């Protein structure tokens, strides 16, 4: 999609509604584990956790080897397709990080039969959606399209032309580069973006996973021949899987796909080889100076796990307790108890290579000291003390109960399916998920907290006004400073 336009809509025109809310505060009546939340015990909670069964996908393979998985749902006359091609930025040549991304972005800028403008107009006329993305740190190129069921044949035909026959016109490539560079300057003035870039560099060093966006020099040097080469090597049916949600039967879907993609010819599918990863060997404190900033963005964390790692479920539960939402320790402490921030969260991710563990927040400059102290204190506490029983039970209940809500979300169901396929997880993976969550113990939580939020290897990144925050950061180590937007 045109992330520029969407981003602009969000950043320039988020006027009007303000999302508020959620909160607790301290009360002595509550047990220690729930410090900050007062439970009066009168709310009529149904003690049973509603167990739900996620829909199983129906599968098929096209004559040319393209695998297909469908979650059939006729509730609304719409459909969406996600076509995943193995490769992505992780398969970029060592000196061309960003090639997969630019190839994906240029698909819709012209084919053998259609100009960029014709593609835009025809797609819009159908009311259809099309997007293609491959970040420099991704293991896949992801192509999405969808729309109204009664427009499906036309949307499939258009999408097939875009995916299979891109022309990568020279003029469009030049225009894209110029747009991208000017957008990048805009992104980098957002404190969150600057923090993300610095944090990824700190965790991954020179590994391609460190790239949020491609290096500018690489981008400007790319030629249409590079794009054509990447396309030829990766865009082939036997290197992909189409995950489909919506208003189709498997039979109709396969017919539509055969019509649009059936004569797409196979090739030698690439073998993804990942460069070796050098994990951070020591803790660091990094400051991105942002003069006139009234807040400090704090990102603290380190290297996490691959998606298939056995620690996944322990990390899932640990993260939920630490900062997985407004009922978490970080939120209750830093926002509700101390009033330092509007929001504070922790996340973790993982794919074919180890992801990150991360706790982050934005606080007014004057309370950077207290906020960082509390944040670091919570990271320490969850590794130092076993989580109390009730808090653990509630976290597991929330994670398992939340499955019911995912039944309403095609994005979640498709993303679950993608996870299972990409990482070769067992076919019953999502069915056994609740049991695996339920099996996590307090000792598991403590162990993974200690292991992944290891104080000796923690990366502390701050984006803020150096005049105000440098002294605070010095308490945590030697501060390495750089200017914003570099």
């Amino acid at each position, binding site marked *: 999609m045109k992330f520029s*336009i969407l981003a*602009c*809509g969000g950043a320039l*025109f*988020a*006027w*009007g509604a*303000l*999302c*508020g*809310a*959620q*909160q607790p*505060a301290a*009360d002595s009546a*509550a047990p220690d584990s729930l410090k900050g939340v007062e439970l009066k015990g*009168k*709310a009529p909670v*149904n003690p049973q*956790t*509603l167990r739900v069964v996620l829909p199983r996908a129906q599968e098929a393979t096209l004559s040319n080897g393209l695998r297909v998985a469908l979650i059939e749902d006729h*509730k*609304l*006359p719409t459909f969406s397709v996600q076509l995943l091609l193995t490769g992505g930025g992780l398969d970029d040549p060592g000196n061309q990080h960003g090639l997969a991304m630019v190839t994906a972005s240029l698909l819709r800028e012209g084919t053998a039969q259609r100009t960029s*403008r014709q593609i*835009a*107009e025809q797609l*819009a006329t159908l*009311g*259809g959606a099309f997007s293609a993305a491959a970040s420099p740190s991704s293991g896949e190129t992801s192509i999405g399209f969808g729309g*109204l069921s009664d427009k499906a044949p036309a949307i499939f035909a258009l999408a097939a032309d875009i995916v299979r026959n891109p022309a990568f016109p020279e003029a469009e490539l030049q*225009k894209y580069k*110029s*747009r991208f560079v*000017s*957008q990048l*300057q*805009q992104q980098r*003035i*957002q404190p969150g973006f600057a923090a993300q870039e610095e944090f990824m560099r700190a965790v991954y060093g020179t590994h391609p996973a460190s790239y949020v966006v491609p290096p500018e020099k690489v981008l400007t040097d790319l030629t249409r021949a590079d794009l054509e080469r990447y396309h030829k090597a990766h865009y082939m049916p036997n290197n992909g899987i189409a995950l489909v949600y919506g208003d189709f039967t498997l039979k109709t879907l396969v017919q539509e796909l055969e019509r649009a993609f059936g004569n797409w010819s196979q090739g030698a599918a690439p073998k993804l080889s990942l460069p070796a990863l050098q994990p951070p060997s020591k803790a660091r404190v990094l400051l991105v100076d942002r*003069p*006139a900033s009234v*807040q400090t963005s704090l990102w603290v964390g380190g290297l996490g796990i691959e998606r298939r790692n056995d620690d996944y479920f322990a990390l899932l539960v640990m993260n939920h307790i630490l900062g997985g939402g*407004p009922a978490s320790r970080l939120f209750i402490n830093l926002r*509700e108890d101390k*009033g330092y*921030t*509007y929001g504070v969260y922790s996340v973790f991710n993982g794919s074919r290579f180890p992801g990150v563990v991360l706790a982050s927040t*934005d606080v007014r400059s004057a309370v950077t000291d207290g906020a960082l102290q509390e944040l670091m204190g919570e990271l320490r506490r969850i590794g130092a003390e076993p989580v109390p029983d009730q808090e653990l039970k509630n976290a597991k*209940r*929330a994670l*398992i109960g*939340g*499955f*019911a*809500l995912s*039944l*309403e*979300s*095609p994005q979640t169901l498709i993303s679950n399916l993608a996870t299972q396929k990409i990482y070769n997880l067992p076919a019953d993976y999502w069915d056994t998920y609740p049991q695996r969550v339920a099996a996590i113990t307090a000792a598991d939580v403590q162990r993974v907290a200690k292991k992944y939020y290891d104080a000796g290897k923690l990366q502390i990144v701050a984006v803020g006004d150096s005049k105000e925050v440098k002294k605070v950061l010095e308490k945590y180590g030697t501060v390495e400073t750089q200017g914003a937007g570099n």
Partner: protein
Amino acid sequence: MNRAVRIGICACLAAAVSASAAEPRSTPAKPVATVRVEFTETTLPNGLRVQLVEDHGAPVIAVNVAYDVGSRNERRGRTGFAHLFEHMMFKGSSNVGDGEHFYQVFSNGGSMNGTTGNDLTLYFETLPANQLELALFLEADRMRSLEITQKKLDNQRQAVQEERRLRVDNQPYGAADEHFDELFYSNFAYQHSTIGSMDDLNAASVEDVAQFFKTYYAPNNAVLSVVGDFKPDEAMALIRRYFNDIPRQSEPPTVDLNEPEQNAERRETMTDALARATQVQIAYKTPAGNAQDLYALRVLSSVLQQGDSSRLYQTLNKEKELTVSLGGFVDERIGPGGLYIGATVRPGKKAEDVEAAIYEEIERLQQQPIAEWELEKAKNTTRYGYLQSIRTAQARATMLGTYTVKFNDPNLINTRVAGFDAVTREDVRRVAKQYLQAKNRTVIVTNPAPPAAATPGA
């Protein structure tokens, strides 16, 4: 095309009043797949309007409570109060502890939030279907018996001020965004920002909170919408049990939202220490959100600035390479709104050239009818967007409550698409001429300032 897709089956219980719709103004040119959201409406003796949509498609329930109050109801010296008050609604009531509301929702696998806008304030939660009673209990208890203390107020004042720093003071162009309404509107109701000024937030007192609660958080000033996997008679029994005895209050004062007619362009230039590129913001005054012309204005906006097929994208961003990004929308308020256009200027290019190119495209819309494909684009995109937007139970609950408070017309959830389908190419040209005039326009150009030279605002 001819199939009837039902999402949410009408349960014929209680006094199914309302649902009297604004008729589409003419027959749509093409048949539209008939997706309908069937709902019932009942009014409790205390004035609370209750809407139910039974839908067994997924084992979830969604509750939305829409209160007929927003920043439009704030008085001078108390800007930001409606939103600050919204935060207080999570701080506990007679039978619900401080923070317990969200704790119970999240601990049981649900999601929730509250949101405050110019026109209304919404509270909503989605939970697994076996927790309907919990959701209703939580909403009823705070409607009946909010607990207000100085300590809680001070605590949330800090959270809100931090939210202001995050969204306004620390954002490039945040100051310009906030100032835009001050220039665009003449009437105080919409002229001031929903987040409010730091001074006014500091001035808010517990007496203000108590008074605001009594005046606006009464059952007769609210709409309860419940969507999902439940039996309507059981849901209604629970709703009566928890909400019936919340006392009615006297009707809140009405607010005049009328704007004096604008006779000349309004324009300002600002500087921003956090910005690196020049930004141009333009808006034209448009009528109230339920005016018939809004349909044509939204089609116009789609043609002008929605997606990479749009005229502004193709001309300014792609062909002339004048902008980094651009986009906009038509807002939908109870009172007068605007058609907004925003653009960030590329390094080395001039704001005047961007503006001139935008006005050239607008003139084209006034001179010549839009193309057939452009009209089809607007209609198909709208229809697809609409179907996506009614997928979740929460979205339907929120939409019903919003349309009821804003326009007293919950059935807009079913009739709005037909309103778009009725728009003609000539309608678009007519509204372009009528509303997109220079004298009806407000413009703010924001230039980057070197950080050292500027002192950021409070």
